[in-house]
């Protein structure tokens, strides 16, 4: 969406699609790793997509599709080579305000010298929230992820699934405008994983947070997402933006045996297989890149 349509959208006061509806906007994002003394690696060739406020979007791609590069670029932890990432109308140049990231390595993203409560509290302190309100937010977040009784424990005293729930609690207590999740359940067992997926769905539904969920698991992407963005192999372009027209009310048993779920899953699976073979839509050439 360009500046002009944003402005005209606001000026015309169209309630159907106001410009502020877009939480996250990727405009021609390109990333080339240029380490001195090494050959250049083009990780992302061209990515354009938008995420509306309150949407839950999954990103899948074959392994090595630059999913992590993409996520780190969106999180402002990595500079893009061309194009821009726009969060809430502001271009991302460093870690932006209003974004929280849940990393795959739950055991290494929590501060082991702090209790669960202190882990959640630290970003809130930074925000300058008064103590009483902080405690209230922490308690609420812990309740959301059913970890109230673990508040005074240290992360390493908890199981893997519980640790990842702490990381999620920390993220939602922060009340981000966009929640980024980088293969958050790749390292937990299957049962825990199913529980955590349902947790993400229910948090998303009643907190109204915008979620961008990166995963390599096709089933997980279709089960969780309202949309599934399928990436090509490296250098990454968009394969297809798949709309998931499953009912909003989902559960592990019925949704996964739904005929439509099977169809979508099959479709995404096929896209990934094609991507792996190197089949890719023609990408628009990035401007200014010397070919």
């Amino acid at each position, binding site marked *: 969406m360009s500046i002009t349509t944003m402005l005209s959208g606001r000026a015309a006061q169209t309630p159907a699609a106001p410009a502020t509806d877009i939480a996250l906007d990727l405009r021609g994002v390109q990333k080339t790793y240029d380490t001195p003394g090494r050959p250049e690696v083009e990780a992302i060739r061209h990515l354009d997509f938008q995420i509306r406020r309150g949407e839950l979007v999954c990103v899948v791609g074959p392994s090595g599709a630059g999913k992590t590069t993409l996520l780190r670029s969106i*999180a*402002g*932890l990595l500079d893009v080579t061309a194009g821009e990432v726009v969060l809430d109308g502001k271009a991302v140049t*460093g*870690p932006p*305000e209003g*974004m*929280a*990231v849940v*990393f795959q*390595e739950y055991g*290494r*993203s929590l*501060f*082991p*010298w*702090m209790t669960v409560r202190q882990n959640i509290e*630290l*970003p809130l*302190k*930074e925000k300058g929230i008064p103590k009483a309100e902080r405690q209230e937010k922490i308690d609420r977040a812990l309740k959301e992820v059913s970890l109230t009784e673990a508040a005074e424990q*240290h992360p*390493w*005293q908890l199981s893997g699934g519980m640790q990842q729930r702490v990381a999620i609690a920390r993220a939602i207590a*922060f009340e981000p405008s966009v929640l980024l999740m980088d293969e958050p359940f790749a390292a937990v067992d299957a049962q825990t994983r199913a529980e955590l997926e349902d947790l993400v769905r229910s948090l998303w539904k009643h907190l109204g947070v915008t979620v961008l969920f990166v995963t390599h698991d096709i089933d997980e992407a279709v089960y969780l997402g309202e949309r599934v963005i399928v990436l090509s192999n490296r250098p990454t372009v968009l394969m297809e933006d798949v709309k998931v027209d499953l009912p909003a009310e989902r559960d592990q048993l019925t949704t996964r045996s739904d005929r439509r779920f099977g169809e979508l899953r099959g479709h995404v699976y096929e896209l990934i297989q094609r991507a792996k073979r190197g089949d890719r839509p023609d990408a628009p050439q990035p401007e200014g890149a010397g070919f």
Partner: protein
Amino acid sequence: MTTLLKRAFMLLGLPIILVAAWWFASAGSTSPFWPPLSTILEAFPTTWTMDRIVGDVFPSLARLGIGFALAVLVGIVAGTAIGLSPTLRALAEPVLEFFRAVPPPVLVPIIALFAGYTGWLGKIVTIALGCLWPILLNTVEGVRGLEPVLGDTAKSYQLSRWRRLLFVVLPGASPRIFTGARQALSIGVILMVISELFGANRGLGAAIVQFQRSFAIPQMWTGIILLGLIGVLLAAIFKVVENRMLAWYVGQRQIERGV
């Protein structure tokens, strides 16, 4: 109860055997340099009177304390700065390697030239300089070795510089800092004594040298025993502090190892 007894035995078993061996081996000794342990122990209370403890032991320990504290302070501040900045690291590394390779006792006469032979300053500087390197180098490694995901987490939550330093970088480096401080403490005790050997009239090391020069051999031995006891006491205090501050680290390690 049995485990308590067992632990007490493990702790005291070897010292008791060694003391007993010394006692019996030296019992009939007539050599003036190798007096019987019984004679040394008899000399202990008359040698280390309150007057001597206040006049010799306390000043030595105070100098050790000040020198060690200075080294901890400077070591952590400089080590954190060097660890965080690649530029600073590239600049400082060759110099650090050079100073680390110089044995600290060699510096005693040089420092004494500038800071005086008899005063406190030269001795404190000697102790601080000797203690500095292990703390500094370990802090650099600790800061550099911080888990990258923790750094990303701190950045993505937009933690300010000093909050990142105080709540992320320093606690993350603290296990290494303690390793350095433990090494520094034993170096400090050695330098506390050595700094007094060259020129001092009061102090634990100075007292031992005086006893030796005046052929008060049993008294000299009591001084050495006292030094050993002080070393044990300092190590114990250090352990208590470490166990308190690194409780998270010990716990995490135990769980990782599946103990």
